[in-house]
């Protein structure tokens, strides 16, 4: 599996560290809604197909990346920075 880092170009999987599902949204830290916290901490959509996920180019530029990848074929559709780069306007 090759991941095309927006900084470094296509690099081997071994350089990247998987950070998991990117669709979860953290509840308001003041929230005491147990269901909402359960959903954030434990529940996963776990799709067979397109999956939005975070990776870090840990063995390279160390950027956090948002990757859209197929969990059935390992095909990668899209790689962007996980959050906008300061001053560039490039967004995830």
């Amino acid at each position, binding site marked *: 599996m090759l991941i095309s880092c927006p900084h470094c170009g296509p690099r081997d999987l071994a350089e990247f560290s*998987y950070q998991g599902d990117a669709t979860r949204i953290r509840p308001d830290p003041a929230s005491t809604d147990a269901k909402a916290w359960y959903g954030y901490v*434990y*529940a996963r959509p*776990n799709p067979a197909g397109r999956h939005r996920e975070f990776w870090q180019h840990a063995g390279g530029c160390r950027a956090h990346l948002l990757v859209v990848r197929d*969990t059935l074929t390992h095909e990668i559709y899209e790689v962007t920075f996980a959050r906008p780069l300061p001053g560039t306007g490039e967004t995830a």
Partner: protein
Amino acid sequence: MAEYSALSLLKNALSGNRDWKPAWRKPAPKPSYDVIIVGGGGHGLATAYYLAAEHGITNVAVIEKSWLGSGNIGRNTTIVRSNYLLPDSIRFYDFSVKLWENLSHELNYNVMFSQRGVLNLAHNPGQADAYIRRGNAMRHGGGDALWLTREEIARKVPGLDLSGSARFPVVGGLLQQRAGTARHDAVAWGYARGADRRGVDLIENCEVTGFLRDGDRIVGVETSRGEIRARKVGLAVAGSTGRVLKLAGIDSFPIESHVLQAFVSEALKPFVDCVVTFGGGHLYMSQSDKGGLVFGGSLDYYNSYAQRGNLPTVEDVMSEICAMFPSVARLRLLRSWGGVMDMSMDGSPIITKGPLPGIYLNCGWCYGGFKATPASGFSFAHTIARDEPHAINAPYTLSRFERGAVIDETGHGPTPKLH
């Protein structure tokens, strides 16, 4: 149905092996059953067997989308052990080892359970302390554990690199002598034959495509071979749990599917007579009766439903086995393959009634499902038959995550790739 004995072997050898009978029937699905088990792997077949054998429920169908035993029951590294730390785990897996010890007799089918021992190598004093603590917990729970010094390990496993100059020098090891290996396919076949003989219909090439509902209640399944109704539907589909639950309208669940690879080398003369695990990284290996070294390591570390992995993990696993046994460096690999693991959020399984009325769920085996096959089937059958858990699976609820009552052996938290 087929009977195996020295006499029948001789008779069939003389007649050119033309007269063997199939070990189980190939029935067409009936319109309805008392219980449907989705998933014809080890756990599904064991559940059907114990429903019939222990609870007298024989109007049962096992529905399998491919052929029986085509999933993880035939893809694992065949290790059976109960070397756990937490009381709930010790109780469950020790019960499983006890069922393993009598399984060939129970099924009248040789599952080749070999109590050759599992040896966990420790490579620093901290790890040694943790292993000794775990060994004490196992003994406290009624199991067996022995601490071996480096000298004792040198006598037991001669090929290991035990020199002080090893990258991860060995300081000792925890041995569970009652642990070992079994012939994994035979476990599926033995349970299948046992269930079939008691009247269970094993229906292959029959994929579940949806669920039948009566209000909130699940009352059967839609399949590629038509609708099949049942009062109770049990799911034992391991890595496909997410996909099957989506058909029932459950889009979010405390499971992630990950790919795990395993490997077998070309055959060698007898080289190692127990299971050895490497604590400097993560590797477990044994030698099969055919002589190949059977081994595996960690997950590929990303979500996957593909039954194949990538090369960085292969390289990692190979470097570990060469660190343990320098003499295998020039050995050739015969095969490698992958299986899809249902990784739960605390590393422990879920065996429970629910999450919908009419459904029963057995999943979350991470990559320790093979050794659990008998206890999983036994306790899941109990849960389905009596509508309440057996004492050994009572802690393995789905609600434990919401309640914060997780059973987390490794303390990694809700990071499934690390369990």
